């Protein structure tokens, strides 16, 4: 019923506007085309300058309302992201100045040079000097931005430092899986044809590769130590996904068949970020940033950044996936088969869900 009234009201507003519009056309015919045109001109000239003033105030007000919510006041949560923030501020400053100047000129000229009886337009078809000025100045400004941009770009896309923590992250409709290389620091090979062999091998790891035997598989939440570079090796199983890390100012696509990488250095632990943002529920989220199907919006992963000691402790508590899939190879399970529930890892839960 409410919807019905909304429609009725909308239609009535339409009719009223239309009647006013029709009446005003008759009035303008009576008044004479010339005169009504001049009147319209005055009104619209005034509206344009008002729009400029209110628009600039509105832009300021919008910034006032939402700047705090962009997480820029808190700064980047990764060391590499700091440079991106700096570049962003430089770009905002430069484009902001150009924005204000050009918009003011546009609406000011429109207002100032509106049609007047005694005004004659100025025949001014071209001026080489002026045109050269506004070709060179943008070119110089852009060169500066390009140079700084590329410096950061090559840093971020360059090789990760040798001591980086390596984590493999695999996207599939609609969740993320993580794999740590274990003690040997080498990830076991992946062969998509090994999917579900044996049953529960959801990451299609090739367990004939000895490097895979100590690999640790965890679902959805990743642990990282603070202050140490982290390198992601990114896979996708079905369609293209994207590892989006807004707090670290990074993202990278996950493409089936083509592994990609990214690296960064977390600056603050999750607990520190809770204080910095004043949000007790703060959590580093991994958003899928590439359209991947109907559950795209719910493809959420999380990262818990902890101190180096906590990270080591956490890591030592994880059980390699090899042992959960090949129970007979697990030294612990062979020792105490009666007490398996205790040692069930997140990964095992995950596999069971499959």
């Amino acid at each position: 019923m409410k919807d019905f009234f909304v429609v009725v009201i909308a239609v009535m507003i339409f009719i009223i506007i239309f009647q006013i519009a029709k009446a005003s056309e008759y009035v303008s015919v009576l008044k004479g085309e010339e005169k009504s045109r001049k009147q319209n001109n005055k009104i619209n000239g005034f509206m344009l300058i008002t729009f400029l003033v209110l628009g600039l105030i509105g832009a300021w007000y919008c910034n006032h309302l939402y700047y705090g919510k962009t997480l820029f006041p808190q700064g980047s949560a990764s060391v590499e992201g700091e440079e991106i923030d700096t570049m962003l501020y430089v770009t905002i400053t430069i484009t902001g100045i150009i924005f204000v100047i050009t918009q003011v000129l546009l609406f000011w000229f429109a207002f100032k040079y509106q049609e007047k009886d005694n005004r004659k337009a100025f025949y001014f078809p071209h001026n080489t000097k002026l045109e050269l000025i506004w070709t060179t100045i943008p070119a110089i400004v852009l060169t500066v931005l390009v140079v700084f941009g590329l410096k950061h770009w090559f840093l971020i896309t360059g090789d990760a430092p040798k001591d980086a923590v390596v984590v493999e992250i695999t996207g599939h409709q609609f969740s993320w899986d993580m794999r740590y290389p274990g003690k040997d620091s080498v990830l076991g090979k992946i062969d998509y044809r090994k999917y579900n062999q044996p049953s529960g091998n959801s990451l299609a790891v090739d367990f004939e590769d000895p490097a895979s035997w100590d690999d640790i598989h965890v679902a959805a939440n990743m642990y990282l130590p603070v202050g140490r570079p982290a390198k992601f090796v990114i896979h996708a199983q079905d369609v293209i996904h994207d590892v989006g890390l807004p707090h670290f100012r990074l993202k990278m696509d996950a493409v089936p068949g083509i592994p990609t990488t990214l690296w960064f250095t977390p600056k603050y632990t999750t607990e520190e970020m809770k204080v910095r943002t004043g949000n007790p529920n703060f959590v580093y989220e991994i958003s899928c940033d590439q359209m991947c199907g109907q559950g795209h919006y719910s493809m959420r992963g999380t990262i818990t950044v902890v101190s180096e000691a906590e990270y080591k402790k956490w890591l030592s508590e994880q059980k390699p996936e090899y042992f959960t899939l090949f129970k007979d190879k697990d030294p612990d399970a062979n020792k105490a088969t009666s007490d398996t529930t205790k040692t069930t890892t997140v990964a095992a839960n995950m596999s069971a869900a499959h």
Partner: protein
Amino acid sequence: MSSVASTHDVVSHGHSDAHHEHHHHETFISKYVFSMDHKMIAKQFLITGIIWAIIGGFFSVIFRLQLGYPESTFPWLEDILGHWAKGGKLHPEFYYALVTMHGTVLVFFVLTAGLSGTFANFLIPLQIGARDMASPMLNMLSYWFFFLASIIMVSSLFVQTGPASGGWTIYPPLSALGDASLGSKIGMDLWLVAMAMFIVSSLLGGLNYITTILNMRTKGMSMTRMPLTIWALFFTAVLGVLSFPVLLSGAILLLFDRNLGTSFFLSDIIVAGKILPNEGGSAILFQHLFWFLGHPEVYIILLPAMGMASEILSVNSRKPIFGYMAMVGSMFAITILAFLVWAHHMFVTGLNPFLGSVFVLLTLLIAVPSAIKVFNWLTTLWKGNIRFTPGMLFAIGFVSLFISGGLTGIFLGNSALDIHLHDTYFVIAHFHIVMGVASFFGMFAGIYHWYPKMFGTYLNNTLAYIHFWVTIIGAYLIFWPMHYEGLAGMPRRYYDYSNWESFKMFGGLNEFISLVAMIVFAVQLLFVFNFFYSIFKGRKVTTKNPWEANTLEWTTPIRPGHGNWPGEIPEVHRWAYDYAKDGKDFIPQDVPVGDDESKHH
């Protein structure tokens, strides 16, 4: 460039068949349906485009309801959408279908076919002084292929598994695998076939526009005397002819992957628990093919708007366009660069960083010709004597939006910043302002300006002014705050943000944006009403040249017949921008140069 020798014999041929429209009888079918008159074909494109714009706009209203009110239900949605909105709540799959179709419809069917289809057809012969297009037959086919594409695309809305839902960029493997998404079943095949038809239409049109402009200019109309609209439409057609075939090849390869078991874009895939046999393809290859069209497409949409805005700004400032040659040169530069920047859509695909850096450089280079155009438009207004006709207001609005949206392109084109901003609402804000709304403003400017020539009547002025003011204020209210959501990293194409700790604080803003979007959409309906009402009941045009403009279309009768000029085609003696010259308000192009005239151009 200034050689016009070849046009002379065409013109003399044109003279011999003057008045020919009186000689043969026109039936309803040959006049309104299978018409070969470029003006009627233009109107067909325009009206089909308007219908598509209403559909595409309405889609956005529905998905904005979901974004603005994720907790609410709307029972009437179930009435119109059935099982796609059970209990009045949009199904995520159909949400994505709506997003996909909104993009496809507005980018291709409205702002490509509806915009250049309308104005290239309408203005090219009228402004260069030709009786019709080089091939009226191909021109007619161009519309009917577009019509066919439209029918197929509309039919995909009614198949059981729904229309394509992988985004308008249809990246495989999502779009290639029926198991990955409902929309990738039959809906995707229909999408691809419809786009293939669309591309055929666009090529037939484009070849015709280029041929006509190069060969059929009237006597005296050298290339450098052409109005900027014609230059813009010329470059648009060149872009389309050279880039659309690449998308066609991509679409055909994708059809093969979908239906014939090839592996152009597929490799190492496990979907719905099944291991696919495809190996050796590259999902990224498709993105290269897509964006090789996709980026020029942005300029296919934008250039006609630039051309029309230039013309309308000059006419209503009563001043020549400032820096004509620089305007042509910058459009030429944009055309060339448009082909060399496509990978800036792919900075985060794992692209080779060195290759990425080349694309950064070329992308930011586009800002130079764009800046030249903006400053030239501003200088055109400076010391003018400006008339705020509705067309002029929309042209000024176009410049404002082009500045706002163009500047954010400097953020996105710089790869280091793009890593953070890619696929967030910042991108949505950027391209909606710079190519969506700005091009719509160019299109509206064109419609208001040339409506008297199209239909012999005026649109209602009061409705036009309401339309302008609500639309420009609404456009900024909708898209400006989205920059902030994007800076916070809020991703595009999310059905619901309420479970995300990082993004849910924008819930109130999303509701506000949805509300404004609905108001703006309602006002567009007011424009549509004005458009159709005024064809029949609008104030009649009583003078040949209501805007006191210089270009040739205003030398034709108020309602020109097939052939445009009843007598001889006028000869051109000057460029199109002699406004305020030697104390004269305006001097049309067909007026011979006087002995006492100062030599400026």
